[in-house]
C-alpha cells in the first residue's frame, strides 16, 4: 500500500514537471519544451499505472489532478515570485480538503470484496 502512494507521488511530480515545461514552452514556442512535456506525461502515466494496482483509479486520478493544479500554483509562487490572491488561497484549501475527503471515502478492496460476498 505504501509503495502505491510513493508511485502516486512520483506520478504527480512528473506531471507537474510536464505542465511547467508546457507553460515555459508555450511562452517560447520551443519544440524541446513540448518534447519534455510529452515525455514527462508519459512517464507520469507509467507511475500512475503502478499506483492504481492498489489505489482505486477514481481516487488516484482525483488526487493526481487536484495535487497537480495545487502544486503548479505553489510553483508559481516560489519559482516565479507570484503573490497569492484570496481566490487562489480558497482554491488551494479546496484542493487539500477535497483530497482528504476523497481519501476518507475510498472503500478498501478487501472491504469491498467482503461487502460483495455478504
Amino acid at each position, binding site marked *: 500500500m505504501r509503495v502505491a502512494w510513493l508511485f502516486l507521488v512520483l506520478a504527480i511530480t512528473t506531471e507537474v514537471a510536464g505542465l511547467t515545461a508546457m507553460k515555459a514552452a508555450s511562452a517560447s514556442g520551443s519544440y524541446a519544451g513540448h518534447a519534455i*512535456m*510529452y515525455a514527462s*506525461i*508519459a512517464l507520469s*502515466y*507509467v507511475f*500512475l*499505472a*503502478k499506483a*492504481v*494496482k492498489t489505489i*482505486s*483509479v*477514481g*481516487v488516484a*486520478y*482525483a*488526487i493526481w*489532478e*487536484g495535487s497537480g*493544479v*495545487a502544486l*503548479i*500554483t505553489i510553483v508559481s509562487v516560489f519559482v516565479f515570485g507570484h503573490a497569492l*490572491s484570496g*481566490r*487562489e488561497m*480558497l*482554491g*488551494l484549501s*479546496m*484542493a487539500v*480538503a*477535497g*483530497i*482528504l*475527503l*476523497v*481519501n*476518507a*471515502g*475510498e*472503500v478498501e*478492496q478487501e472491504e*469491498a470484496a467482503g*461487502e*460483495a460476498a455478504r
Partner: protein
Amino acid sequence: MSADGFYFAFAVMAGILDVAANLASTKSNGFARRGWGALSILLVLAAFALLAKAIKGMELAMAYAVLGATGIFGTAICGRLFFGQKLRPVGWVGLSLVFGAVLVLHTA
C-alpha cells in the same frame, strides 16, 4: 456547429480520452500487461494533443474545467462500473471539492 462548440467538443474529447487512459492504466496491472500500459500512454498523449487544439479556440481555464469535470467524475464512475471500486458519499463530496479547486485555481 459553431466554432466555439467545435473547440468545446475537443476539450470534452480530451476528457473522455483521459478517462479511457486511466481505465487502460488500471487494466495494465502496474504495467505487467505492456499492451494495456502502452495503450494508456497513447491515450493520454492524444488527450493532451486534443487539449492543445482546444486551447487555440478557448480559454485554458475553461478547457481545464471541462477536462477536469469529465476526467474526475468520469474516472470515478467508470472505476465503479468496470472494476467495482466503490466510493463512500464523503468521497463524492471530495471529488466535487477537487473539481471546484480546479475551477477556482484555473480561473484565478
